[in-house]
C-alpha cells in the first residue's frame, strides 16, 4: 500500500550527508524543512523573500564552484514564479546542480490556497521542455530511496518533483536577517574551502 510523502521526513531521506552540499532554499516551508535538516547550517542560504530567486542563486553557485555539489530545495509556487530559470539553467548545464521541488500543490505560507500544480501543471514536464534531461517525479514514499540514488547518480543538472502531503512544514526558527545570512554563508564557505585546501 502506498503512503503520501511527509515533507518533514523527506529531505533527511534525500540527503543522507547534508554537509556535502551547498544549499539554497526557497522561502517559507522549504526554508524551514531545510533549516531543520541542517540545523540552520551557515552553508544554507534560505530565502525569506525574493520569491522566484532560489534556482538562479543555485546556478550562480554551481557554475562558480564546479567542484562542489549545490542543491536547491524549493516549493512549487516559488519555482513557478520564475519558471524561465529552468530554461537558463538547462542551457547553462551545470553538472553539479540538483533542484528538489517540494510540491504540496499549495501556497502554504499565505493561507494554503491551491496552486497551478493542483490543476493541470506538471513541473517535471516543464523542466523537460526547458531542456533538463534528468527529471524524476516522486509520488509515493517507497520511491524516495530511488530519488536519493537519482540525486547521486543522474547526470546534472537534475530536477526532482516530490508530491507531498498537505501538512505543516518542519517547525524551525531560522536566521531571518538577509544581510546576516549572506555574510554568514560567505564566511563559512571560505573557511570551509581553506580547510579543504590545507
Amino acid at each position, binding site marked *: 500500500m502506498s503512503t503520501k510523502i511527509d515533507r518533514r521526513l523527506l529531505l533527511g531521506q534525500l540527503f543522507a550527508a547534508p554537509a556535502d552540499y551547498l544549499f539554497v532554499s526557497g522561502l517559507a516551508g522549504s526554508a524551514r524543512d531545510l533549516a531543520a535538516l541542517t540545523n540552520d547550517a551557515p552553508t544554507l542560504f534560505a530565502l525569506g523573500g525574493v520569491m*522566484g530567486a532560489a534556482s538562479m542563486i543555485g546556478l550562480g553557485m554551481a557554475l562558480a564552484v564546479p567542484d562542489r555539489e549545490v542543491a536547491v530545495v524549493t516549493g512549487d509556487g516559488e519555482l513557478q514564479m520564475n519558471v524561465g530559470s529552468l530554461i537558463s539553467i538547462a542551457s547553462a548545464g551545470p553538472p553539479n546542480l540538483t533542484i528538489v521541488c517540494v510540491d504540496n500543490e499549495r501556497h502554504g505560507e499565505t493561507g494554503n490556497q491551491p496552486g497551478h500544480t493542483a490543476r493541470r501543471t506538471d513541473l517535471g514536464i516543464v523542466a523537460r521542455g526547458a531542456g533538463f534531461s534528468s527529471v524524476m517525479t516522486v509520488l509515493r514514499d517507497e520511491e524516495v530511496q530511488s530519488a536519493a540514488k537519482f540525486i547521486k547518480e543522474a547526470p546534472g543538472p537534475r530536477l526532482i518533483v516530490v508530491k507531498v502531503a498537505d501538512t505543516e512544514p518542519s517547525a524551525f526558527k531560522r536566521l531571518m536577517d538577509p544581510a546576516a545570512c549572506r555574510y554568514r554563508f560567505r564566511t563559512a*564557505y571560505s573557511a570551509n574551502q581553506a580547510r579543504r585546501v590545507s
Partner: protein
Amino acid sequence: MKTDTEAPSAITGRHWSSDLFAVLQDYGVRFYAYVPDAGNATLVQLAQQHPDMRTVMLTTEEEGVAFCAGVDLVGQRAALLMQSSGVGNCGNFFTLIRGARFPMFMMVTMRGDYGETNPWQYAMGQAAIPMMESMGILPFVVTGSDDLERAAHAALAATFKGGHGAALVLSQQFLGAKSM
C-alpha cells in the same frame, strides 16, 4: 536593427567594449549574465572568446540578479548586462541588493532617453534610474566616450570595494539612438 553610430574609444579607436572588458578583468569579474541586447553584444562576445570567462544567457533580467548573488556567496564576481527596460523586470529581486547587501555590478544600456524613436521605450527608460535609486543602487552615467573608463572604475569600486549595487548606465548619447 543596428545602432546608428558605434562609439569608438577616445584613446585607442577600438570598440568601447574592449576597454570596458579590460576594466572588468582588472576587477576579477568572471561571470557575465545577460539578456541579449545590441548594446551588450560585443562585450558578451569578448567574454565568450576568453577561456576564463563564463557567460550565462537569461530569459529575464531578474534571474541575473539572483545569479550574481549566487556567485557572490562563494566569493566570486559577476556582472549583469541588460537594457534599461530590463531594470523594470528586476524590481523585487533588488531586495538582494538593498536588503541582503549583495554587491552587484550592472551595465544598463539605455533606451528611451536621448533620440529614441520608439514611443514604447520612453516610460521604462525614464523610470530606470529612479527605480534603481529607490532600491539603493548607484547610477554612473556615461554620456560620452571620455566618461566610459572613469565611470566603469567608479561603478566597479562602488560594487566590489564599497559593497553596493552600482549601475554603469550607457546613455543613448553615448551608444547612439537606435532607429526603428
